[in-house]
């Protein structure tokens, strides 16, 4: 791939970095990243990855823009209310950077379609808001040996971990599986500070860029815990769990399945 003069100008602040250079920018332009969810986490990730010149970005979401989204889902504008989120996000990404290809996947990922979708990408960003999707992405990336980054946000807290399947600790190593229905509040029930999506989503985008460049150390075998009120970041070491039902010594999960979505009736709960 030969960069044009315009591209060299556009990416000059990358190219001047010793760890990126022309070769690194070419790697970014050849990279293929899938973002699942065009919401609080996915919006900032999508905009920054588009700006960075990630050559192919897929974005998955079946939803339309709702007014309650606009407090944090910065890819969408008031004028986008009612529009498909993937279209709304793709427009903003292409407007920032017409160099890149944006693939829109207007669907929710399930056990019967996820393998086909993630197949076309090198790295997956989990920007979802529910445990069924989070564990499905974890499992599908395990079976497809696809690197991915998990994140979750709630109230004033966020967490994140990058997984290199078969090599580093996965979501099930820590949590086993989803919590019982109703045990954990959702953002719609418990609230979420809007900028948290920006903090964690841009960190997820950073992991995608590092993965594409082959630079630095990914957030593997560690869960990052962020609290906005204390402004604390803690990188908590974790390791592969021998009793992990997915990647442990005697796995009980041997193919993809859909976890049940909870029926939410929790009145009050907070971490």
């Amino acid at each position: 791939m030969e960069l044009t003069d315009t591209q060299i100008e556009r990416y000059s602040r990358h190219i001047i970095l010793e760890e990126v250079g022309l070769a690194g920018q070419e790697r970014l332009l050849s990279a293929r990243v899938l973002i699942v969810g065009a919401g609080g986490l996915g919006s900032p990730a999508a905009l920054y990855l588009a700006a960075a010149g990630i050559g192919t970005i897929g974005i998955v979401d079946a939803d339309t823009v709702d007014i309650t989204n606009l407090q944090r889902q910065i890819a969408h504008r008031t004028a986008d209310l009612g529009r498909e989120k993937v279209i709304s996000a793709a427009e903003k990404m292409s407007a920032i950077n017409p160099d890149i290809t944006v693939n829109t996947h207007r669907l929710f990922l399930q056990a019967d379609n996820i393998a086909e979708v993630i197949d076309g990408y090198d790295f997956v960003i989990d920007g979802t808001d529910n445990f069924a999707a989070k564990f499905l992405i974890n499992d599908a990336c395990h079976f497809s040996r696809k690197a991915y980054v998990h994140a979750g946000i709630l109230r004033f807290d966020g967490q994140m971990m990058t997984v290199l399947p078969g090599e580093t600790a996965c979501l099930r190593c820590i949590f086993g599986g989803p919590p019982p229905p109703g045990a954990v509040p959702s953002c719609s029930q418990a609230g979420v500070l809007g900028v948290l999506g920006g903090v964690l989503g841009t960190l997820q985008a950073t992991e995608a860029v590092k993965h594409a460049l082959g630079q630095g150390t990914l957030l593997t075998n560690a869960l990052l815990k962020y609290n906005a009120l204390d402004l604390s970041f803690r990188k908590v070491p974790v390791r592969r769990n021998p009793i992990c039902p997915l990647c442990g010594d005697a796995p009980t999960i041997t193919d993809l399945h859909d976890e049940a979505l909870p029926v939410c009736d929790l009145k009050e709960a907070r971490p």
Partner: protein
Amino acid sequence: MNVTVNGKATETEAIALGAFLTEQRVKSPDQVSIELNGRILRREEFDSTTISEGDQIEFFYFMGGGRGAY
């Protein structure tokens, strides 16, 4: 007894893990995964686990429990 919880030095009167969770204001054991001295506990172990001097305890909260719209 002195233990470390989520990286912070903490004093506790609790011995049983369940009492310790209450003391630490964990609303329900279903909300957390617990690492004790570097090992993730099985949920079935919660009831029989006790806390000892110097233990390193980490709570990992489930985060992201929406209903299916990203």
